């Protein structure tokens, strides 16, 4: 089942690349289905087949990056 995390602070392709890289470095590379911009200062991470723990880990990783937070 896919899960989507909304992220405030994303505004460019650099942000997309950075978040994707941080999640991959955190061991979640295979769980990333997509990272995308969806609006003004708003983006999403879509995870596939992620457990509750993996979802929590992804949120933790994203919230640690300066300038972004999950909503």
């Amino acid at each position, binding site marked *: 089942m896919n899960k989507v995390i909304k992220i405030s602070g994303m*505004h*460019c392709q*650099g*942000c997309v690349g950075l978040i994707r890289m941080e999640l991959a470095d955190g061991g979640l590379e295979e769980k990333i289905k997509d990272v995308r911009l969806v609006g003004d200062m708003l983006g999403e991470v879509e995870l596939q087949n992620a457990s509750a723990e993996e979802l929590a880990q992804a949120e933790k990783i994203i919230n640690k990056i*300066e300038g972004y937070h999950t909503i």
Partner: protein
Amino acid sequence: MKKNNSKQVELFVEGMHCASCEILIEKKLLKNKGIKAVDASLGNGKVTMLMDKDINIEIDEINRQFKTDEYTFSKTPRSKKEEPFIKVRNGSLKVNKRKAAFYSKAILIALVFLAGFFFIEHFQLGQYISVDNNSTLGAFFLLGIVAAVSSCAALVGGLLLSMAKSWHEQYITEESISIRARPHIMFHIGRLISFTILGGVLGTLGGLITLDNPVIYSGLVFFVSLIMALLGLQMLGVSWANKIKLSAPKSLLGFATDDNNFKGKYMPFSIGAMTFFLPCGFTLIAQAMALASGDFVRGSLIMTAFALGTLPALSAISYSSLKFTTKPHLTAKFNVFAGLIVLFFVAYNINGQLNVLGLPSLNDINLNIESSQNQESMVVQNGDEQTISFIAQGFEYIPTNGTTFKAGVPTKFVVENKGIAGCGAYLAATGLVNGYLQLKPGLNEVEIANPRAGTYKVTCTMGMVPPVIIKII
């Protein structure tokens, strides 16, 4: 990794828009074997890498790594010349929005910092601290604390801030904060040791020397300010400033500049030690007290206490420069902030010294407004002699019998000290009075045999006491 096994490679980058792009590029490039450090700069559109000397990274490989991120790397700038921050086109002002966004936060923080500096200056904290021959070491310590958040901050603090950039670049490969802090620590140790030893020397010399040559001291401030200005412009990325490399002449400094020993060991120590000779007004007061003590130990303790008082504020400058350069993407912003502060301090120091030398300065704007509002001035004569009279109180010199006098008439320069404090205790009236006039409590008199026609400024040794213009006609 020792620096001589590394090489620095700089590439131009297209496609960056924000700090996240900087972080992404830095982190991704660091994953390449052999790359030790990376600094991406949105403002300059460049990335600087420190890597093993025997590594050759192909640009095509880098571009392949970043293809999905839509960045393009090249050895030469591919896009048209970098747009300036502000320009005039077709009669209207155009602001580079990208640069404005990048610099806005740093500029705002710099403005807040300067507002805080002026706020503290407004209270003229120096007037609350008076020292004399009988003051305790605690009083000199307090004097140091006040000095470090006042005029000395502009001189010594500004110098320290401007050196931070080159020290950071020297240790860019080091992750350990203790190693990166080494030049800062050596600076502060050098300063403390020199103040201790040279304070004792002053005490020993006693009345053999005097510290009262405004021209020499002003020259020193101008020289140091020139170096600070260059470093400040380099921090702001001004291209012509970056082409000028500062290096101490080896013949002059010998061992301290030997390349084998240079790295973080002796140059910062020497610079810290040499701050003893920077003529911050408060430092001059402490030095005069050390001189007057006539004793090595007392002189040494006075200057040590003073230097210790300045240590917290100067350490805060070191700490902030280290903290904000731990992350590459913060370095560029810190450089903008620090560059603006340094340039302001340069202007502040130079303006003060222009007052000391009696030359036109920014203070004249205020003085011209005041004098146009108060046209009355008196030429006072008492037979064949005239008297220029002041009251020194708080943090100002108050003329009591006018500001216009006759040339060629034997003149008494009289200052009644009714509680002037801080660096105001050392009055400068270059051209009228030789050297500095140390104001003792009560009446202080100096004979001026043949005052020449001209305009003179009466202020303190740092030019901080609001100058009073005296006209000799």
